[in-house]
């Protein structure tokens, strides 16, 4: 029978965010796909909303792009009216409101937001496609989400472990992020090529890249 036109396409990819005492890490792979085809090996899924806040989005690229534009515009209007950039918790709430406005024809975007809050502490927020959100210590979203989240529960959440919990520093957490992406890249066809990692502190955002298998 006839295939109805779908306004959505799934362009794949995985995003992850982890918070620390005074930093946040947001990372995503750079592959753009459609069906079984790879459209590009180098497209960013991360967007710096403010100098203290990064949004990672996987899903339908066109909806992701439009969502970013809308957030940028709203952010500029806020800055114009309040004479200061939006704080991370405010951006988090704004994203939720923006997503819910499209409740009956949603943005097909799976979001994680990472940044530092007003007190300088790391903050991570996870969302669903229609704006339900929660502040969490860590989160992963996208096609490789299932491969990564139990690992984060075990290593960062220290769940089901009997040994003593030690506080993990930035470098150690970045290594865990890289391990997670290597794993997701192995088992998820939509994840691969390379990983873009952004570390956010009160002093700004540092970006690094890491190569994955291109198969």
């Amino acid at each position: 029978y006839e295939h109805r036109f779908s306004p959505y396409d799934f362009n794949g990819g995985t995003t992850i965010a982890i918070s620390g005492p005074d930093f946040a890490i947001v990372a995503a792979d750079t592959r753009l796909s459609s069906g079984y085809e790879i459209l590009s090996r180098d497209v960013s899924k991360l967007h710096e909303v403010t100098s203290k806040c990064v949004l990672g989005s996987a899903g339908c690229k066109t909806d992701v792009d439009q969502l970013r534009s809308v957030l940028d515009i709203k952010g500029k209007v806020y800055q114009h009216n309040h004479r200061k950039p939006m704080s991370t918790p405010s951006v988090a709430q704004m994203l939720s409101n923006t997503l819910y406005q499209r409740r009956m024809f949603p943005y097909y975007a799976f979001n994680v937001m990472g940044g530092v809050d007003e007190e300088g502490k790391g903050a991570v927020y996870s969302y669903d496609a229609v704006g339900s959100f929660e502040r969490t210590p860590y989160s992963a979203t996208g096609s490789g989400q299932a491969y990564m989240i139990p690992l984060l529960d075990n290593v960062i959440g220290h769940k089901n472990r009997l040994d003593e919990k030690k506080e993990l520093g930035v470098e150690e957490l970045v290594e865990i992020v890289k391990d997670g992406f290597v794993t997701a890249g192995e088992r998820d066809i939509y994840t691969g090529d390379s990983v873009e990692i952004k570390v956010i502190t009160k002093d700004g955002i540092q970006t690094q890249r890491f190569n994955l298998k291109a198969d």
Partner: protein
Amino acid sequence: MSILEYNGAAMIAMAGKNCVGIAADRRLGMQAQTVSTNFQKVFPMGDKLYVGLAGLASDVQTLHQLLEYRLSLYELNEERKMSPQVFSTLLSNVLYSKRFGPYFIEPIVAGLDKDNKPVLSGSDLIGASVSTDDFVVSGTCTGNLFGMCETLYKPDMDPDQLFETLAQALLASVDRDALSGWGGVVHIITPTGVMTKELKGRQD
């Protein structure tokens, strides 16, 4: 609603140095309702051969009985023990024989062959099997299980390391799946015997 997801299951089999381990959860549910918290899904088929049956619970029990029957018949006729590779092929053939009305089971097989080398295999519900040298997974949270195993696995682990790896991989995976969990059981098969341990995890 998928028939393979009606009862819930999670299982892993993994290879170490001259040893294999097989682990599974203990939950039996009927969709959202939990009915039993000590349901057996991993069965010994020989002193160095274990099979894990994930899927519809009725078929788990029926297939276990059928496999015991076929194994006994083989051993009586052939007057020798069945090797893990032969068992795996037998399982594949039994599943394919019901190609157009299948058993709703996705099994995994773990054993040591006559030279005490690890043998691992997994199959889909109609008998398409794969043989690996690292790990195989099955159940309602295979994404979670693959992610954990891929990250935690390293080759040539000794029995104690293998136990820890299996336990952590299983527990972390089932805690993100509503249909599996309520404890676990791990069997480590070595040339000298089988070590079995119960896991206590989140009881939800």
